[in-house]
């Protein structure tokens, strides 16, 4: 019973998602559509497929969620990536990327000096490659780089 729980949750989520999309599609009103079926029919059909598959998965769960050997590095990395999305523009590319690379290197079991080295090479290296060499403008922070 416990082993099938993730699959049941997945099935029910898909079912709810399908229902949500179908409900949303019905609210689409247009005064005039160039074709006879308008913007509503297709999303409704797709929603039915998602919901139907979801119901099937929930009714006949199969998979076993393989337990992760470790969860902390993944969680820390996800948090760091979300923070990076918000801090990239205020901090500038080099600083923000240095911090992100530092966290990810540590998550991949680097020793502190290895992580600092990896981040200190990767962040300015990418900035040189992308901003200077390939001319793709990256955000400049308070440092001007």
């Amino acid at each position: 019973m416990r082993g099938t729980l993730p699959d049941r949750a997945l099935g029910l989520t898909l079912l709810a998602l399908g229902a949500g999309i179908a409900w949303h599609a019905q609210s689409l009103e247009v005064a005039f559509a160039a074709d006879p079926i308008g913007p509503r029919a297709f999303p409704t059909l797709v929603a039915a497929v998602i919901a139907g598959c979801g119901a099937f998965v929930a009714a006949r769960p199969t998979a076993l969620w393989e337990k992760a050997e470790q969860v902390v590095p993944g969680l820390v990395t996800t948090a760091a990536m979300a923070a990076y999305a918000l801090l990239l523009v205020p901090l500038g590319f080099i600083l923000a990327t240095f911090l992100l690379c530092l966290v990810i290197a540590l998550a991949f079991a680097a020793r502190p000096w290895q992580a600092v080295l990896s981040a200190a090479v990767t962040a300015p290296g990418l900035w040189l490659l992308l901003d200077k060499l390939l001319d793709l403008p990256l955000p400049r922070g308070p440092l001007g780089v």
Partner: protein
Amino acid sequence: MESLTALMGGFAIALTPMNLALAFIGCIVGTAIGVLPGIGPMNAIALLLPFCFALRLPPESALILLAAVYYGSGYGGRITAILLNMPGEPSAAITTLDGHPLAKQGRGAAALAVSGIGSFVGATLSVVLMTFLSVPLARIAVGFSPADYVALIVFALSLLGAVAPGNAVKAWAAGGLGIALALVGIDSGTGIERLTFGSIELLGGIDFTVLAIGLFAIGEVLLLLETRMRMSAAALGHGARLSLGELLSCIPAMIRATGIGFVIGVLPGAGASVAAALSYTTEKRISDRTGSFGKGDLRGVASPETADNAAQIGNLVPMLSLGIPGSGTTAVLLGALLMYNITPGPLLFTQRPEVAWGLIASMYVGNVMLLVLNLPLVGLFARLLAVPGWVLYPGVIALSFAGVYAVSNSAFDLLMAVGFGVLGYVFRKLDVPLVPIILGFVLGRLLEDNFRRAMALSDGDVLALFGSIPSLVLWACTLAAILWPILRRKAA
């Protein structure tokens, strides 16, 4: 003959210095990511795609680069399979069966040589087949009505469930989810907002690079983080090198494997892994008289590696001629073309010959480059396996975000990429395949457009979807693709 003239035009494109350089870079990157377990061509192409776009590479150059990464990865996966007994690419799994025993006998160099030559033979013969088959195939599809296209796309999506190794229903759900993601944004037919939840950022729809990078670059790294990696590679070995006699004895196996690989590759949905497995079992049945397969038979290395590369090229045929990708990576390539506002399909060969023929011609060149790169430099590529994760993956993630930012300049898209990364990780844990999401995403709008066009033509009569011979054949195939997993389960 017509094809040959067009191919010459393609060479004029492929042989310009920039395109040669891009093919060369693609071949190196492709082999390298093929070697590294965990990162595949899909990750690498998703990573490179935004840069092609932001650098304003012309579409044919972008495609030459991205495709070289794709078929180059077929050369890299075997190196890891033979030396490490662990596939660098999923499609190289079969290669471990005979490749690793050979490495343990000290004949790693011979196994790498024969598989490199096999990869070259399979890929090059398939490019020749592609040269002559693409236009006739496209010509069949020129006459397709919107209703026929609806049937074709539904067939391609349903087939994903039938050939997927896991749960067929989950594959279909993933396909539906991909289509739903493609619907986000302003409906082109009526200008109404759909599934945007009032968000301004979502008005323009979800960017393909955000989805691809999230699912395949970020999600993959998250998955790698949950296990502690440990591996040790076998040495290249000092045993007898590959002799000419041994190589010649593998030729029939390579020819058969090319045939199997190419046919499997052309079928939408079935990928290189299926081709490699089928080719190996067939070869074993035909030529294993002494029971040497599985204990280190060179033909057991040549066969799956040849089929693997032949199938990769075969996968490109429906993508270019019909606009229907046959695998996840070709779906990403299709998404790349769509970003350039080029719709692959029957008209591509006449309207944008520089894209279609430039790509085909570049694959002749690229495979020669790969052979030259892979025979002498195999040791160098193998050394990549010693690069620790803390050097590699911070760079992968930083490059992912830089790519998303280069295309969109938006923090919202970066967050969305993280969200898709988490989704990709959770789906992988739940055994939900990700390829149908990408396929549904790139085909979703096309499916709806054709559906609505068909309904407009028939004035809303749904029966019009079943009104022609091609559509009836395709619907019958779709029905078979849906029933097959159910019957398979009953039988098991």
